[in-house]
């Protein structure tokens, strides 16, 4: 864990965003994760993304399950409400929270044990329910708090710290999210802030279920030779096929002159994701294209990263069940209670 508490003091000339806030205003309390933990980098990327988007932090609700990753929300966005719920069940809590108030931004922070092992069911269902939220899995293939057991995303054939080989097939959450109907699907690496920050910004701006699988190495239990989730392994095997830039709706859009195929996908608020695929045949609007690319790269022993799929304009849960625009938690007695006269009619119908 980091031993030196964060100082409240910050440089008077730190850059400020549209809300007049600095990067520091988006931080949380001091991290108790291991020094060098990938999750702290994920948290820092969230802070950066929210700062750059000028999000009012209190309008973000952080939800998590149980595990190192689920503790992480304490260490970013200190002005947001957080809910550290029970193991593997964050998706249902997020569903309820979102139903209650459709106007907040919901950020789910989970891990591979939380989402792929104990919580695989809830994960699959929240995707197919098309909840409007950003769901980040900090994926390291191992349990940290119980000291190094493999999770369900540990790759078959990889070696755990004690020397044991993983014999079960690993679950790929990105492929699962794609086949369950997620409308924004990305994979990234905690060590690649340049790639990760725009992906988080895009996800937070997306209306619908946005999923980011972030490879986030566990420095204590899964960063050795033989692991497929170590810093070294990931740096060697990552293949960024599609790079994405988040372009806010207020900025001027200039023509791209760089190499690669550029594709712009507009979000609901006029902001835009500018995607560049190094492979011409890749279509980020096609699920099948994404699924087959992931499979092809996996077969080659590569970890495909980038914004793999984006469907803009799809309907989400509130639209699907046709709830009123006003948040349900703001409806008052008059809007909710039918009153005694109606009850008298009902009494009559029960006679």
């Amino acid at each position: 864990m980091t031993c030196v508490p964060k100082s409240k003091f910050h440089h008077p000339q730190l850059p400020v965003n549209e809300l007049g806030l600095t990067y520091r205003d988006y931080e949380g309390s001091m991290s108790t994760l291991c020094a060098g933990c990938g999750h702290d980098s994920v948290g820092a990327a969230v802070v950066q993304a929210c700062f750059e988007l000028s999000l009012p932090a209190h309008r973000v609700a952080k939800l998590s399950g149980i595990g190192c990753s689920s503790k992480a929300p304490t260490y970013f966005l200190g002005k947001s409400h957080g809910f550290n719920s029970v193991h593997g069940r964050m998706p249902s809590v997020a569903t309820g929270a979102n139903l209650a108030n459709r106007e907040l931004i919901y950020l789910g922070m989970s891990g591979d044990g939380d989402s792929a092992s104990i919580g695989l069911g809830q994960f699959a269902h929240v995707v197919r329910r098309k909840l409007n939220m950003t769901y980040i899995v900090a994926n390291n293939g191992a349990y940290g708090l119980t000291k190094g057991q493999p999770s369900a995303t540990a790759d078959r054939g990889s070696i755990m710290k004690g020397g044991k080989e993983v014999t079960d097939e690993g679950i790929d959450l990105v492929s699962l999210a794609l086949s369950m109907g997620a409308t924004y699907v990305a994979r990234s690496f905690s060590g690649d802030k340049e790639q990760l920050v725009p992906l988080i910004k895009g996800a937070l701006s997306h209306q619908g279920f946005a999923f980011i699988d972030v490879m986030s190495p566990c420095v204590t239990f899964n960063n050795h030779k033989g692991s497929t989730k170590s810093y070294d392994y990931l740096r060697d095997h990552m293949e960024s096929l599609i790079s994405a830039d988040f372009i806010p709706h207020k900025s001027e859009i200039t023509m791209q002159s760089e190499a690669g195929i550029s594709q712009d996908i507009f979000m609901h608020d006029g902001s835009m994701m500018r995607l560049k695929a190094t492979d011409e045949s890749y279509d980020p609007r096609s699920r099948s294209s994404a699924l087959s690319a992931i499979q092809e790269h996996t077969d080659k022993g590569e970890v495909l990263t980038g914004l793999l799929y984006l469907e803009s304009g799809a309907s989400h849960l509130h639209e699907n069940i046709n709830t009123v625009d006003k948040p349900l938690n703001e409806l008052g007695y008059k809007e909710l209670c039918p009153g005694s006269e109606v009850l008298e009619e009902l009494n009559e119908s029960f006679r």
Partner: protein
Amino acid sequence: MISPIQSVNDFVIKFANVNGTGSASANNLFAKAVFNMGVPVSPRNIFPSNIQGLPTWYEVRVNEKGYLGRRGGGVDIVVAMNPQSLADDVAAVLPGGYFLYDSTNRLPESLCRDDIQIIGIPFTELCRQQFSNTKQRMLFKNISYIGALAALLDIDFEVFTQLLSKQFKGKEHLITANTTALELGYVYAKKTFECPIGVRMTKSDQVGDKILVDGNTASGLGCVYGGATVCGWYPITPSTSVVESYTRFSERMRIDPATGKKRFGIVQMEDELAAIGVVIGASWNGARAFTATSGPGLSLMGEFLGLAYFAEIPLVLINVQRGGPSTGMPTRTQQSDILACAYASHGDTKHVLTIPANPKECFEFSAQAFDLAERLQTPIIIMSDLELGMNDWLSEPLEWDDESQYDRGKVLHEKQLNSLHKGEKFGRYLDLDDDGICYRTYPGAHPEQGAFFTRGTSRDRHALYTEDGDKYVDNMERLVKKHRTAASLIPAPVINIDDKRHKMGVIYYGTTENVMPESLDKLQKQGLKFNSMRLRSYPFNDEVAEFIDSHETLYVIEQNRDAQMRTLLVNELDCHPKKLVKILHYDGMAIPVQAVVGGILNHIGADECAKTGEAS
């Protein structure tokens, strides 16, 4: 030869049907007709966990005095429409009783009894002649036996025609077809038998302005009136119809007139864990939310109930109890989740239970549960059961006070957070009012103040994680204090002191109420007098302890094997276990009068023997 039973407005009739044949609506029509004759009625569905093909029964007690509980023993009349269960159905008739059956196929000689009246009417054949379509023949066979009963029991035919026109308003062809089917049986019975038979009905005025409705319908409606806007659920018998009722009424009463959009969100989840997870998430975020479940669903919700208790999140859970353990008897009734709910989840937990006994209380307790949950910031578990939830009950009409307001509990909104003194920091778990209940905030309320981390781990008064033993104990003790505060807010017991000098009392709860007036009348005839207390909630308030203290012997009447409420009373009130005598019934059918009267008499007899033995 035993003479046929003679009785007016006081009998039990049992319909034997095959499930999935549409008999339910016909049988319901019969119960409604009795009700509309002004005579108290209590119908019960006795059904299998099956879609189609297995035996199902509908037992209706008709009683001018208003006794609604199961009488126990045999029945006066059987309407046997199921060849599979004929032998059992013949055996169920009391000597002198009546057996009405479909004589399209002759009753096997071996089943004939000479101590009962056997009435054969060829319903299948009559319907075959009258209706051309197979489905109609099946459905209207049921209506035709109701028509025959109208003649045999002397029920006003006009009552039926009125009910049909009310039920099928605007669908004239259905009114005509149903009336034809009714007449079919009516005319045949009139023509063939001496009508009425010994058991019969006459118009009365014992129903007043009462209504006839099932508990689950009333519970679902209570959630609408109580302001619930979010429901996460998973279907399970016998609680499913609570959510169906909430859905139906919400769709009628909660649509925004301008946009046609819904002022409620119902999501059928993948399991009960997710169902209660939704409720917790929504309540945390300031909406009124509930779920309903039964049996195994309750077990699955255990972990989340512990989280809601410890993190202090309001929620409403309607538990419609069924026969356990495990899958148990999904379509039979019990009160066997008392302990599982009072102490649900691992670690030291104590929940708040309310226990309705009739549809009016189902409605009121459901609506009130949202106020209680938000005031107390904890789960409120409503302990209904299959007997109450899935059967129609004669009930006082539902009432609503338009002057009432929702009590949203202790919540600091933006304005209050703005007015915090400079340097004063919001603390989620500060007990500022010394009642164990702290102030909470909704997510998104304020840019600077009020945010905190909700967690199931131990924390200090400012919601920061801690493993400090003193801080942990401080928090756990406050939760106990809050639980004591709850006792003053939840429904008080209904205590009836017949005479202060009585040394014996009865304690009961929920649907056991249905058999109590009759049981106590019967015991009184034997010279045994009791004061009574109907528990309506847990934690117990002082009145409960006083009632127990002021009697020598208390019979605790329950519908479970292990005397769970007695255990809870002993555990919570430290009363002497010897004072509390268990009277138990748990075969899956609602407790009959017999079990109460017999149980108490047995104990008194045994007690007398013991005393005599000591003396000699």
